[in-house]
């Protein structure tokens, strides 16, 4: 609920982008479990994010994000 209130404080029309931020947080969580949270640079991180999106976890979260974006529209 706190996050939703914050989204309303900022820009309601940008709420759907927060769904993407949460997906990023899940990705960062999995990277951190490997101990690589700061080690990998932006380009490598982006490449890994694309690969992660094809894993089971990545696919589920992307689907969740798409559904939440539809709710926010």
């Amino acid at each position, binding site marked *: *609920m706190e*996050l939703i209130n*914050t989204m309303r404080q900022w820009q309601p029309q940008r709420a759907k982008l*927060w769904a993407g931020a949460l997906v990023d947080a899940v990705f960062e969580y999995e*990277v951190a479990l490997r101990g690589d949270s700061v080690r990998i640079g932006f380009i490598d991180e982006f490449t890994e994010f694309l690969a992660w999106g094809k894993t089971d976890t990545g696919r589920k979260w992307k689907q969740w994000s798409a559904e939440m974006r539809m*709710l*926010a529209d």
Partner: protein
Amino acid sequence: MKHKILVGILACGLILFLYTGVQTDTEPKHLVDPQPVLQRSDSIVAPSQLLEADPASGASNSTLTHLKTRARLKERLVSEGFRSGTGLRSGFENDAEEWKFVQTLGPADEDELLAMLLEQNSLSNRVQFHRMLTQCGGDKAAQVIIDTIKSQTGRFGNPAEDHNYYALHGCLNALGPISTRSEIARRFLREAADEEYWKLNRQNISNHMRTAILHQNPSRPLRAADILRPWS
């Protein structure tokens, strides 16, 4: 007389026995290799004692220096060329330098990192500390970042500014790695991802927009387009 001699012999025997026994009891203590004892006395010293002790009194100089420097994170950062207030950049010379330093961070550094983070009046200037906290932050770091997310409006300038928005987005990113060590972060992310909240948010936004539109022109009929795209 014989009786006295017998008692005397028994008494001498008893004394001899006790003396031998005591020697037997104490000998193993003397047989302990003194080296480990010396090592223990060198290694197990309370940090407070080490910080106050003269290196000549027993604490090794390198250990003393190490503990002193660990207690001063700000100085360690400066010695590594770190600069605060660099906005969305890490503040280190390059990624390799940042990674090298971040590897030295531990839970004991969390408080000092948070103190330095709270000194920053710009949201984007906090990003560099968020990155470091992903390596060592726990519940305290999670709570500070969550509080940051919850108290944006009117504090860090216009929320529509992209660098602020990116920094706020980065707060959520940082909570991801921190959630590996913090239940507070995990709970926040779990609640934030709850579909029911998103449905509720949709209703709240709709009600908010409906009220705003009706307030502007109460006699005008409300159209679906007004609710879905009030600013278009």
